[in-house]
């Protein structure tokens, strides 16, 4: 592989990289708040809610993400008989990823909330903080600090998982690299894609480390 060939592969793969980034960011933006909701539901005092959320989490974590993507994509067709447009293809990828990651983040957040000492809640209560104030001012920030390491793991996994979008023939970077490799009968494009993932994760790890340092201002 000479340099011009390498550059050309890079520029071709770049097209798919945009979509990889899109899956990555959309998934983070939706799955994190959704994860907070999942954690709330998981800690609900209403047993029915708690059990229901538990079951959903266990299904989302216990079955392949690829299968979930397929279910989301074909769901409307099998349930309503609707036609599957290509914009739906992209939506399905985002929805499938967001829901799946919300389950993982939800469990991480729940553990983080439960690790906040009960004395914190008692102090807040005696000082008259409302429930909402206690959540956002006292427990949420302490939870965030505690969950950075497991969240980092999930985010790094997400970078690699974006390649599963190929299951819906959504041409993100990996799907594209495979197509190029097949067309050129050359595995170099796959290695280049691997390099892209690696650099991406390198940056992700670095950013998460910065966030961890920033949240580590106390103790």
């Amino acid at each position, binding site marked *: 592989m000479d340099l011009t060939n390498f550059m050309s592969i890079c520029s071709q793969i770049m097209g798919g990289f945009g979509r990889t980034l899109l899956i990555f960011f959309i998934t983070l933006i939706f799955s994190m708040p959704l994860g907070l909701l999942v954690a709330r539901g998981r800690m609900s005092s209403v047993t029915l809610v708690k059990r229901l959320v538990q079951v959903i989490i266990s299904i989302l974590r216990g079955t392949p993400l690829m299968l979930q993507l397929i279910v989301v994509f074909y769901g409307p067709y099998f349930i309503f008989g609707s036609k599957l447009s290509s914009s739906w293809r992209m939506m399905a990828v985002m929805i499938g990823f967001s829901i799946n990651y919300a389950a993982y983040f939800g469990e991480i957040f729940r553990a983080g909330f439960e690790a906040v000492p009960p004395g914190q809640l008692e102090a807040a209560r005696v000082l008259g903080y409302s429930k909402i104030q206690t959540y956002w001012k006292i427990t949420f920030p302490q939870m965030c600090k505690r969950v950075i390491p497991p969240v980092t793991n999930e985010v790094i996994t997400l970078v690699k998982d974006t390649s599963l979008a190929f299951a819906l023939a959504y041409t993100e970077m990996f799907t594209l690299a495979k197509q190029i490799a097949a067309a050129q009968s050359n595995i170099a494009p796959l290695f280049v894609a691997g390099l892209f993932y690696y650099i991406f994760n390198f940056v992700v790890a670095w950013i998460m480390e910065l966030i961890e340092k920033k949240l580590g201002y106390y*103790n």
Partner: protein
Amino acid sequence: MSLFEIKNAKKSFGDLQVLNDISISVDEGEVVAIIGPSGGGKSTLLRCATMLERMDSGTLTYLGEDAARPDGAGGITYASPADLKRITGYFGLVFQNFNLFPHYSVLKNITDAPICVQKRDKSEVMKVAADLIRKMGLEGKEDYYPQQLSGGQQQRVAIARALAMNPQILFFDEPTSALDPELTAEILRVIRGLAKEKMTMVIVTHEMSFAKDVADRVVFMDGGYIVEQGRPEDVLVNPKEERTQRFLDRFSN
């Protein structure tokens, strides 16, 4: 009129009756020390008084306002959330293990609730906090985080945090048990200072000599009962009850 009163308080955890018909009232400016063996229900009494724990039955009154009263059917009804919120402003609680907010600086620990809960003027709160910081000997520590302070300093921040709310009465649950002897002395000095200023306080403590010279009244609790109460020199030196005597004997050696 008493500032704080709890009447016929009962509380059980499962089969365990932790408070058996406890009644106690505290006047303005009074300092009450609660002593007694472990498991006697002292913390539970304080937690019921500060509404961290719900009583099974009884009456809880601050400044003549009922926070909880019997519902007439052997149970209890608590006041509306709005009333309880106001009543919560009447008291403060200092914990054994401080329970400072670790992600807040010393200054923010002290000022956040007055500003965000009581909605007081920020510059007024800052002034109050500066005074408290000086009074607690915490000058220069404003921007420290709790973990950067000694236990004694942390407890002084916790006391300042409680005082910044301008409570009518302050409860302490073994404020020195988590501290080394030198640090204990420093906290006891602070509490003594508050007593001189006529702060109304209820203090659960195992420091008998401290109780003797700072309290106006000593209450001895055991097995969920108030076994005896009275002037410190009576209860601590010449107790009427044999149980009190036995407890004190165990303490002096």
